């Protein structure tokens, strides 16, 4: 019993328990019926289907997911997680299943900031402890990605619990609390599209400074996860090669964010 592998356990209970943080549209969010929906959700359902088991979602706080030591509450995180060096202390990562462009944005009324270089000395909002923050601190280490930093320094980095907070704060007015924000392009696109109720007054700025790969994560502290990780990598490869991922990307993001493996 103690030596049975994680994969065996999942197959035995015929259920894959997936954790996801329902904070981000269109990755993972509550749809108009109040049900979970999104790219990550669809991917997770597909993974379960290919494993031949049922899927069950659990929605703990992001911190609880990234802290590791899940104690078998869930088997797998499918939550658009970037495999940074520190996270590897607690988690195991699969092959990347898609990648995400990072993106700056400013208030619609802003006329002075035209290029990324105009951001020098400005107040920029970011979500705390995300790759975006690490990038602006020039301290981002991602496996297999060569990060090129901006030549300028921001005036002040304002930390927020999640991206929604700084998007709402920037919407209050140009330069009121923030001059610009920095997050993933999909999140910004969704904010502009869904429109904070009555037209979100923000616009994107410049080209993505970097693309980050996003992976499934497993609990490193759980013994005998190797076969499960291998199986997941196989599935990711299959889904990449047979076009499933591209189809989902286009459905949810409107573009193809799937890297060549």
């Amino acid at each position, binding site marked *: 019993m*103690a030596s049975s592998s994680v994969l065996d356990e999942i197959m035995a209970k015929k259920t894959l328990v997936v*954790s996801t943080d*329902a*904070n*981000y*549209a269109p990755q993972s*969010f*509550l749809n108009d019926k*109040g049900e979970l929906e999104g790219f990550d959700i669809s991917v997770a359902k597909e993974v379960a289907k290919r494993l031949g088991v049922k899927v069950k979602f*659990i*929605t*703990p*706080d992001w911190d*609880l997911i990234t*802290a590791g*030591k899940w*104690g*078998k*509450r869930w088997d797998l995180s499918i939550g658009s997680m970037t495999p940074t060096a520190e996270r590897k202390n607690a988690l195991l990562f699969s092959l990347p299943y898609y990648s995400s462009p990072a993106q700056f944005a400013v208030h619609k009324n802003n006329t002075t900031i035209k290029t990324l270089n105009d951001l020098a000395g400005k107040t920029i909002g970011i979500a705390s402890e995300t790759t975006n923050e690490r990038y602006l601190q020039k301290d981002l280490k991602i496996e297999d990605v060569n990060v090129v930093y901006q030549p300028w320094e921001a005036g002040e980095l304002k930390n927020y619990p*999640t991206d*929604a*907070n700084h*998007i*709402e704060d920037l*919407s209050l007015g140009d330069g009121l609390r923030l001059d610009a924000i920095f997050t993933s392009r999909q999140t910004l696109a969704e*904010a502009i599209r*869904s*429109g*904070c*109720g*009555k037209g*979100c007054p923000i616009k994107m700025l410049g080209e993505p400074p970097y693309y980050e790969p996003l992976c499934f994560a497993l609990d490193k502290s759980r013994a005998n996860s190797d076969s499960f990780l291998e199986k997941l990598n196989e599935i990711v490869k299959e889904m990449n090669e047979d076009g499933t991922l591209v189809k989902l990307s286009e459905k949810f993001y409107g573009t193809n964010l799937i890297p060549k493996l």
Partner: protein
Amino acid sequence: MGIEVDGAPEQGIPEEADRVLRQIEGRRKKYRRNLLISFAVLITLLVTAMIVLKLDFSFMMKWLPFILAGSGYTFLVSVLAITLACILAVVGALGRMSSNPVFNAVATSYVSLIRGTPLLVQVYMWYLALPQIGKALEELGLHGVQAWLTLPAVPAGILALGVCYGAYMTETVRAGIQSIKIGQTEAAMALGMTRGQTMKRVIFPQALRVIIPPVSNEFIAMIKDSSLVSLMGVWELSYRAVKIGRRHFQSLEMLIMVALIYWLMCILLQFVQERIETHMARGDRRV
């Protein structure tokens, strides 16, 4: 000087008194009317502020049923947690007043440690630390302990809230017990009751009267704190409101809505509390 002879007392109320009484009654009515007007004005102001904020009411109405569906969890967690808290509070209060040093030390440490640390941290400890302790114990040879100690979100939340509020309420219960006059204990002891009988039959029933109001307040506070279980992914009121708010970048609408729901729940509970207090007052001077 109007000495009256022994006999029928003057029953009539002079006209002047009548006028004064009507004045007093009139003033009371006017006061009540003004109070009502003031409340109405305040509520109008509140609604105006919401309109000034350009809140998206149709958005709020659309999501109301979905968010309200979370109140079941809110209630379940709160009711079970307050029950646990009451039990812990009574045991804790007895411990704090105990002359048994071990019992006393445990109760004192419990109160100090729990009251001294943020509830948020305690929630994490029940959820995260307990399974790790289980794992450590398993390594020491106790098989199956980890699974036992790996609590699902709802039980972990109930434990966290119950244990936390139990510590605060321990002091409430202790104060309630100590507020009963020493004469009551003496009368019971003089009848030959043991300490246990005295506590159970005489002191505690009276202390209950004193304890009920603060405990109801704690319950009302707990309803709001129960939102912390959303951290562990329980889809209660706050969780639903926050997620919908973020999804549509309309947090303000959702927060105001959930605040109003909590407020209504609190007003409702306060009403219930007042009924209970009236009922408990039956041994008092007749009204």
